């Protein structure tokens, strides 16, 4: 009988909940006694009891704080509640203590929801791992797995470490890290992250990162640091709050000494904590950054959030950002009677003897169509191409310079075909068989699937100028830009040219965000008002250095990140206005005599709840993201 009660009493949260419920019930009982049956004595007794029940916890905490010489809000409320009892204001005393407890309970509950995104990340980290030791699967705490040990993950299991798949394959949901709802196929050689889920299949993973040394842990750490970072407005408020509470206490004592109005002085004590004001910006920031983290968007702090909310221009790198960064074979133009399949077949035989990046997609395409024999002999000519022999035939594949070198001439149709391939923005691979032109293969680095949609979405968000900055040649750059809806292209740039352009945009009065791969874009990224890195889940450097890191290789996260930043900035401002109006309104009400202790506490608690509820709106998914509003093609993600 006593043990469960003791357990409840020992647990602060559950104790407060029960004390609040009992106190509330006593108040209802007392009000019924007075207004239903006119029993004034019973009313006073229940109010007194309610004040004692709720007040006991407040007073106990005030006492504990005093012992460590801390002047707490609980102490002010205790003094006010006891003072009210002394002057016979039983109802006020009961209402103030009940509302203080009930408000705090509701506030903690709602605050927990704004902190929910972080809690979800923490929950994503598994506590146990199954490792293979002496050939047997053993369950151990996730943090005690050793580097290079083989971890076994079964279907439906969470991956407990960062690592490389050595055996097996599975569809892995990386939503916890990248915000990507579509699982990625992982098989031997793929990298996997702690906190992701193997939805089917069994994986054996060689551990490369454990515990605090995983991408998940780094993200958690970064999200926390971002949420703790104080926005400039918050520092101002904290300074104000430091003076506000003692100021009001002095005012209360002064008012009592001068006017002798004890209820006024006690009411001042009740409203001495500017609760809504001190949490107005933190709750918005916690909710905004948390909401972004849920989508795999890491915003590095309140200050970056404020900057990102002001962005009106975006500069993007081309290769690897707007494009996949992997060239693919996009056209095959046979010349002089050979057919398409034959041209591809012979070119691939030549390319199979080399590991040039342009050769890879050609080999893949040919393999898809049939068996691919190896070349008998291959000679590579640097900067030109290669000459190979197979089955007694000679194959030459390369650029224009190779053919000038070999003395193979271009007739009019060949010149026209070459101009056509280049005009469409492709990189040409010219092929000759036995010294005679056989055709041209056009390769291109394809724009990302969602690039055009992302650019359109960015313009809708109000980014009115989007510029491509690339080191690539103007023709392919223009072709890509036209395809995805970018009209401003700056091509053939060196890293320092990119930097100069960013400075120029800023001088023209733009707030510029730059997104790039962080290597040759580093100076431009550093100069931009907001630097954004994409596909950051794979590279920890990007998580560390960028102002905003998009975990997935998904351009649609870009407009989302900017929209969340803007919404958060707006939300912070709304909260500040609500909080300031409350402070001014409460003080005016107290001095005009319209606000008494109970109503003062009620308004104070309501303002805190309104501010938290307003911030909670940020946690909702933006309309674009709702399921069913849009379907995305399945595409494997290689981390």
């Amino acid at each position, binding site marked *: 009988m006593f043990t469960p009660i003791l357990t409840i009493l*020992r*647990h*602060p*949260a559950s104790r*407060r909940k029960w004390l609040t419920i009992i106190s509330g019930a006593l108040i209802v009982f007392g009000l019924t006694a007075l207004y239903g049956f006119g029993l004034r004595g019973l009313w006073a007794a229940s109010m007194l009891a309610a004040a004692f029940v709720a007040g006991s*916890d407040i007073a106990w*905490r005030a006492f*504990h*704080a005093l012992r*460590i*010489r*801390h002047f*707490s*809000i609980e102490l002010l409320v205790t003094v006010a509640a006891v003072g009210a009892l002394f002057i016979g204001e039983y109802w006020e005393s009961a209402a103030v203590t009940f509302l203080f407890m009930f408000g*705090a309970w509701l*506030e*903690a509950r709602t*605050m*927990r929801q704004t*902190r929910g995104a*972080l*809690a979800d990340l*923490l929950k994503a*980290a598994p506590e146990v791992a199954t490792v293979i030791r002496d050939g047997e699967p053993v369950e151990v705490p996730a*943090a005690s797995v050793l580097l290079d040990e083989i971890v076994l993950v079964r279907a439906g299991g969470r991956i407990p470490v960062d690592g490389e798949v050595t055996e097996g394959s599975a569809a892995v949901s990386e939503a916890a890290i990248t915000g990507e709802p579509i699982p990625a196929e992982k098989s031997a050689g793929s990298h996997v992250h702690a906190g992701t889920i193997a939805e089917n299949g069994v994986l054996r993973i060689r551990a490369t990162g454990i*515990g*605090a040394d995983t991408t998940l*842990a780094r993200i*958690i*750490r970064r999200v*926390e640091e971002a*949420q*703790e970072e104080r926005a400039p407005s918050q520092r101002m408020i904290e300074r104000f709050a430091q003076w506000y509470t003692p100021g009001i206490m002095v005012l209360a004592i002064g008012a009592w000494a001068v006017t002798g109005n004890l209820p006024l002085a006690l009411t001042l004590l009740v409203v001495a*904590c500017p*609760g809504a004001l*001190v*949490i107005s910006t*933190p709750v918005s*920031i*916690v909710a905004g950054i948390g909401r972004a983290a849920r989508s795999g968007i890491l915003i590095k702090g309140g200050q970056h959030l404020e900057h990102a909310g002001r962005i009106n221009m975006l500069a993007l790198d081309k290769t690897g950002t707007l494009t996949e960064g992997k060239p693919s074979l996009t056209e095959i133009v046979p010349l002089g009677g050979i057919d398409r399949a034959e041209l591809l077949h012979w070119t691939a035989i030549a390319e199979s003897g080399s590991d040039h990046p342009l050769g890879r997609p050609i080999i893949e395409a040919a393999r898809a169509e049939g068996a691919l024999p190896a070349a008998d002999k291959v000679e590579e000519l640097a900067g030109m191409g290669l000459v190979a022999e197979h089955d007694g035939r000679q194959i030459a594949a390369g650029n224009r310079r190779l053919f000038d070198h070999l003395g193979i001439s271009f007739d009019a149709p060949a010149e026209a075909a070459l101009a056509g391939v280049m005009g469409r923005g492709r990189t040409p691979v010219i092929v000759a068989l036995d010294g005679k032109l056989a055709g041209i293969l056009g390769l291109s680095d394809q724009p990302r699937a969602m690039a055009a949609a992302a650019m359109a979405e960015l313009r809708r968000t109000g980014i009115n100028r989007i510029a491509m900055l690339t080191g690539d040649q103007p023709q392919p750059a223009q072709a890509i830009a036209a395809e995805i809806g970018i009209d401003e292209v700056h091509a053939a740039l060196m890293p320092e040219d990119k930097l100069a352009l960013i400075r120029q945009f800023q001088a023209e009065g733009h707030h510029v965000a730059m997104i790039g791969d962080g290597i040759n874009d580093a100076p431009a990224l550093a100069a931009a008002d907001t630097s954004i890195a994409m596909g950051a889940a794979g590279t920890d450097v990007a998580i560390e250095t960028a102002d905003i890191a998009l975990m997935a290789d998904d351009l649609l996260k870009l407009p989302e990140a900017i929209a969340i930043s803007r919404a958060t900035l707006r939300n912070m401002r709304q909260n500040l206005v609500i909080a300031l109006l409350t402070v001014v309104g409460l003080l005016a009400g107290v001095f005009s005599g319209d606000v008494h202790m109970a109503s003062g506490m009620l308004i104070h608690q309501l303002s*805190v709840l309104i501010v938290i509820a307003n911030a909670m709106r940020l946690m909702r998914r933006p309309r674009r993201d709702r399921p069913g509003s849009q379907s995305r093609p399945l595409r494997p993600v290689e981390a």
Partner: protein
Amino acid sequence: MSTKSILRSDEFSCPSCVTKIEKALSALPGVAAAKVHFNTGRIEVEHDAAATPVDALVQAIRATGYEARPAAF
């Protein structure tokens, strides 16, 4: 020997609790530093685990009116 322990609480509703909890933790024997983060509910304590084990930290925080749990990171 000094160790760094991390605890988490999701019960903070007003930043006034921050200094209170920090003071309560710092008053314990063997606690070199205590930092409470209101926004995330993260509590970092540098302490001598022999003089004040993590359980004692949890007790001290409980006495100020909040429930906290030790966390790995």
